[in-house]
Structure formats: C-alpha cells, structure tokens
C-alpha cells in the first residue's frame, strides 16, 4: 500500500464514519436497537492509530472533532477533546496490545469507547440536565467491540505498521 493510498483510505473511512454517525435511523426503530449503534469514529480512529498511527495526526483529530461537534449539535470542543484523548491513549496502548493483539486491543477499544460515551453523557447530564439511561452508555461500547473483532485480522496484515510502531 503506497502512502497516497493509505491517506486516501484513511480520509475515506473517516468521512464514512462521520456519515454513519449522523445517518438517521428510521423513526420506528426501538430504543434498544438505537443503542446498539457503534461509535463509528472511535472504531475508525482507534483502528488507524493501531494500523498506521502516523495517519491520525493531532491536528486532524482536532478538526474532525470540531466537525463532529457541529454535526452532533454539541458545544464546540467536546469531541475534539475526546478525539485527542483517544489518539493519545491509543498510542499509549500500543505496547499493551502487542503481546496479545486480539484480546488486548478488544479490551482497549471497549474501555476507550466507554470512556468517550460516558464522558459525553456526563457532560450532557451536567449541561442539559437530562436523564441518562445506563443502556445508552453501555451498549455503544459493546456494539463497537463486536465490529472491532472483524477488524482484528486486518491489524495483522502486511500493510499494518502496528508491529513496527511498538518496537
């Protein structure tokens, strides 16, 4: 995979993740099914942090976070902050993941997704004074984890810089 191709794939998957994030579900979808929507941005960015970490620049995380703030109608800065934290924590976790990629990366993605969802929920709770359901905090990390399992084989592919990045 050339550098240009890698950048194209990265940008394409990021845009796709943004689209999937805001794509509306039909009005008649039950609440539990709505909660099963994975956090596509966490999934996409954690994948790229581990697959080819150099793609996920901090400035890019900041800009994508701002776009997400507007798309989600949330105060500017919250998603930038979380995405920067995700990139930071994702890079820190590379060594932890190295010894058992499948299991440890799954644990990491679940924890990171839970952190992102819980932080956002707490922020909404504090600023909007709305009730937060436990399922809306727990279910997205589980859904993200299920999708993550499908991505693990790609992490081990020849194009992955994962092994190099932790040496």
């Amino acid at each position: 995979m050339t550098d240009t191709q890698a950048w194209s794939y990265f940008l394409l998957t990021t845009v796709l993740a943004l689209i999937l994030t805001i794509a509306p579900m039909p009005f008649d979808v039950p609440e539990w099914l709505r909660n099963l929507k994975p956090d596509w941005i966490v999934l996409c960015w954690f994948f790229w942090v581990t697959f080819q970490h150099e793609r996920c620049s901090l400035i890019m995380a900041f800009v994508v976070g701002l776009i997400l703030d507007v798309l989600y109608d949330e105060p500017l800065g919250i998603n930038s902050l979380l995405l920067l934290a995700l990139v930071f924590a994702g890079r820190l976790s590379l060594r932890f993941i190295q010894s058992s990629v499948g299991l440890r990366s799954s644990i990491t993605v679940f924890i990171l997704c839970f952190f992102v969802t819980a932080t956002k929920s707490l922020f909404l709770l504090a600023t909007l004074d709305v009730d937060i359901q436990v399922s809306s905090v727990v279910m997205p990390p589980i859904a993200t984890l299920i999708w993550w399992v499908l991505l693990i084989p790609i992490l081990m592919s020849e194009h992955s810089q994962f092994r190099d990045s932790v040496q």
Partner: protein
Amino acid sequence: MALRSGQTIQNTHLFLALLISSVLLLAVSANTRYLTPIETVIRWLAQPIVYVAHLPANAKEAAGSYVVSMDELHNRNDQLLKDVSRLNATIAELTQAQRTIAELRDALGYVQENTRTQVLSEIVQVNPNRQRLEVIINVGEQQGIEVDRGVLDPWGVYGRTVEVFPNSARVLLLNDERHATPVLVSRTRQYFIASGNGPDEPLTLDNVNLSSDIRVGDTVVTSGLGGVFPEGLVVGIVESVTDVVSESLKRVTVSPIAKVKAKSYLHVISSVEQR
C-alpha cells in the same frame, strides 16, 4: 514509522496546545454564543456529509412516494375525496362559528384579536444525538423565522424554534426534557405547564393539586401564555391521572397529539399580530 521509546506523542507541545484550545472552545461555547459564526461556517462546510448521510432515508421516502400501485392510488384518491368533502363541511361550520364569535365580540366591545401567519417548512435533519430531541427545518431568518416561535405539525403542537440560521432553524420537540409548554385543560380552563420527558414518554402536567378536576380523555390545549403559541392549539389528550397522596399532587400524563416520530410538513408561527 516507529515511535521512539518513551515518546508516544511526537509533538507534546502541539498536543497540549490543541488540548487547551479544545477546553477553551468548550468553555466558551457551552456558556456563550460567541462561537455561533464559526459553528455556522463548519455546518456549511459539513453540508455534503449531512446530505450523503440522509440520502438513504430520502431515497426510501422518494421511492415510497413514487412507486405505488394503481389500486393504492385509487384508494388514496377516494379517501382524499371523502376527506375534502368532510373538511369542506367543517370549514363551513367553522366559518359560521367565526362570524358568530366576531359578532359576539363586537357586541361586547372586545377588540383585541390575535391573528397568526405561518410558514410551511420541511424537516431536513434529525439530531443524531438522542439526548436532544431536535430537528432542523428548511426555513430560517430569511423567511421571517425567529427564536422561540411555535411549530405545529398537521396534528398539533410539535415544538418551538431554539436557534435560527439564515435558511434553517433548529426546533426543540415538545417531548424533549427541556421543553415546557403553558397549557390549559379545555374542559375546565385550568392552567398548567406541560413538560416533556424524553423519547417515547408522555408529557406530564406539573404541580396538579389533588383537588384539580382533570379526567382521562380531557383535551389539553395551549394557553397562549408565554408568547410562543397562541391560545387553543391542541397539545394532547390526558392519558392517565394518578393521585400521589404523599405529595398532595396528581400525576397527570398527556399523550401528545403531534406525531413527533413522523416526517411531515411543519408550520412555523412566524408572527402573532394583534389587531
């Protein structure tokens, strides 16, 4: 590119700078409206993403409206003809009633009367954040819409505008937890506040005394107080009335008449004139 040992972030200064910028942005945008122009620019730049994200839903809707059988069209046509006939009769009755009311007001010397103008709009985006029951509609400042204008769907009160952009506006749905509507029970004319309780939950009337005369099936309409909605718009029907003796109150739930989960045309009350 390998990360050097002990250096997991290539540019710590950049990371800290962006982190501080995010916190500052968050502090400013959560407490003030100074960043609204920046949000508008980003919203404009992100329009292609919003457009593509809504393509499947729009395509489904378009396909549903174009691909119908001839039988179904005939049935709909028959139904529409019946509806037109029924509505014409209702309009005739209402016109007569309106004349009578005008005559009575005239006789009583009552001169103040509210008239309202409405702007037709369409939902272009549903807020993906499930903690916020909001939609974006395709009319805004340039169409004469302002903040805190009532929004109606074909069935009843739908919500109110909370933010207005040049050609769009954000509408807070009436069942959002932040929404409260001054209402009255049309049978008894008692005033209450109807508060939203989130998705799939009925509205509740706040602070209803045990002595209040409210029954299941009563119609709840807007009271006209607060200036957002004129009086008499249907909000919902009383669904249940439960005595909470320990609090000396009644818990009254109201099923909203508006179909907040249906994609329909909305009317925004652009102005309420007094003549």
